[in-house]
């Protein structure tokens, strides 16, 4: 098993306020990790820091992805190397069709890897198959990126993008929030389809519900920007019953 992500003593500031305070996390290939934790504990901050958002400043510590020091890499390069972030709040890009956007993203990655552009027909075949998997109708694809999409549609669109881009490390930030039970199953099956021995997932969620469909190898509890407890699915079940009090304020 190869190490995919290794975070050592990470400190991150947002708007000059420390949010991540000495975080350690190791993810091996093939593993699925879940992160749970109270609102404002820094989960999205961690996700965006890994993705390279410029507002999130690494003060000390390191994030190693495969053999790369992520801190040195531009945002798009992290993506092209296989880091995917499913956003908690996917943004709208009016007028730019989902299809055109996805095609641009895929070809950017192929270019980075020295590959020819994908032919229009290969792209469309792939897109058709994967959009079916996440139950996104074709007509959505010609609409602007997330433009006028419902909350659940946006989340499924994130999973579609993940499936199309075939990342190595997928970070899903509350992709299950606001989903009805059917949509959640769709998202879970998308994540499971993505799962294999070469890929890893970091799944941020508030609900044990999702984890019943995507059985994680580890469940971490986040608080004040550090992991305060690690366990397995049973930990998620306990949290569901007891809340965070017993851990954050013992």
């Amino acid at each position, binding site marked *: 098993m190869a190490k995919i992500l290794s975070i050592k003593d990470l400190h991150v500031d947002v708007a000059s306020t420390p949010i991540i305070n000495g975080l350690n996390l190791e993810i091996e290939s093939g593993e699925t990790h879940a992160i749970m934790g109270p609102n404002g504990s820094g989960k999205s901050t961690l996700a965006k820091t890994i993705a390279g958002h410029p507002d999130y400043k690494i003060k000390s510590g390191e994030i190693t992805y495969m053999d790369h020091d992520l801190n040195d890499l531009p945002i798009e390069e992290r993506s*092209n190397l296989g880091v995917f972030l499913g956003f908690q709040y996917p943004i709208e890009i009016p007028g*730019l069709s989902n299809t055109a956007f996805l095609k641009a*993203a895929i070809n950017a990655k192929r270019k980075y890897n020295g590959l020819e552009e994908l032919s229009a027909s290969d792209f469309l075949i792939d897109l058709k198959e994967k959009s079916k998997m996440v139950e996104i109708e074709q007509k959505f694809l010609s609409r602007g990126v997330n433009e006028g999409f419902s909350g659940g549609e946006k989340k499924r669109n994130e999973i579609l993008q993940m499936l199309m881009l075939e990342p190595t490390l997928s970070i899903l930030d509350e992709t299950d929030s606001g989903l009805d039970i059917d949509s959640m199953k769709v998202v879970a099956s998308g994540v499971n389809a993505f799962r294999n021995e070469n890929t890893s997932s970091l799944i941020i969620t508030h609900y044990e519900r999702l984890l019943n469909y995507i059985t994680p190898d580890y469940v971490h509890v986040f608080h004040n920007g550090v992991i305060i407890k690690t366990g397995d699915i049973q930990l998620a079940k306990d949290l569901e019953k007891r809340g965070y009090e017993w851990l954050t304020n013992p």
Partner: protein
Amino acid sequence: MSDIDNKNKEINEFLNKSYEYGFTTEIESETIPPGLDEEVVTLISKMKNEPEFLLKWRLKAFNHWKKMPQPDWAKLSIDPIDYQAISYFSKPKNDDGPKSLEEVDPKLLETYEKLGIPLHERAKLAGVAVDAVFDSVSVVTTFKDKLAEAGVIFCSFSEAAIDHPELIEKYLGTVVPVKDNYFAALNSAVFSDGTFVYIPKGVRCPMELSTYFRINEAKTGQFERTLIVAEEGSYVSYLEGCTAPMRDENQLHAAVVELVAHKDAEIKYSTVQNWYPGDEDGKGGIYNFVTKRGDCKGENSKISWTQIETGSAITWKYPSCILRGDNSTGEFHSIALTNNLQQADTGTKMIHLGKDTKSKIISKGISAKSSQNTYRGQVTMSKGAKNSRNFTQCDSLLIGSNAGAHTFPSIDVMNSSSILEHEATTSKIADEQLFYCMQRGISEEDAIGLIVSGFCKEVLNELPMEFAVEARALLQVNLEGAIG
């Protein structure tokens, strides 16, 4: 779908390129020495063997122009132009007018190749007839035969003046009178060449017509004159595209375009304008002062203007429609993109005269760096324009915090049954949109290009498909360095 793919491909290809049309073709030219007086006007007319009425018309225009002050009302800062320092006629040597492709100087064809207009292929493949203007003289006209079969006249203006003087005399100056404005008067006096299109009654022009203008000779102003007449029940779609080589000195471009649509006729006029915009410090670049106007003369006639303005140091341009015929329609779809120190002041006038006339205005302004982008529009509903409607949508997109977007809509309503709607938005490219794209592996510059093309979608969709690709690529090229 495949057009989208092509567009993206093109966009990628154009990425990181600086203005690539900055080369000069080395061909000896015949150029009249700089300066402007009655003698020069007469000389131009004589060199072109024009009929007497045209010379008279030019001289009348010149005498009006002499008395007119240069306008200064547009939101532009313009260095004074010395009209005596400009040469008013220039043409490649050994060339007395359009020829067949084989006879054309290979160097000229090479220039067009570099501009992305491989005449013989593009024309055939896309079914587009191209009347290429090299400096002032039409060099080659393709597909003339096929058009002639349909009875369509598509030729250089100079040819038309000789071969179809009755049509020129009948329509020239009827839409843009010589006294209309300073630059129109100047153009009327000294116009060098341009295009004439005539679509006979009931004919649907069998192909897209297209003209590429190009400035080559240093210090020559270009004064194009275009006249399109669509007879009853006819249809034509015309595209004009421009690129110019890099120059250190500002060059003047003062064109006039007149469109006449008779009863039930439709004219679609599209422009992709990519004149040299000057460098990052605002040095060089084209001054683009253009008068474009269409006359919806007959009932149910329709004129639509679509323009993609990415170039020029200064743009001053208001393609307009006079909705004279009852139930006639005027449309204006515009993308104006400014970067660095470019200034654009553009918009439209919709003058409703007939009953039940309709007009639609969609304007997309994008300003980056320290550029200034102004929409100036006027909608007039005259007394007789009963039950007429106008819809105006003006969207501005700002990139960075130094750019300026300004909107000056003006309406004038003289009857009580007309309805006007106006929508306006101003937005910025959000950092979170860029982050989202970049998280998907797309570079910042490509991301800006994609977001901008999304912003412009409604207008890009109006362009003939093969030109939409070019337009998107131009947006991308012209946004280079817009951030950072």
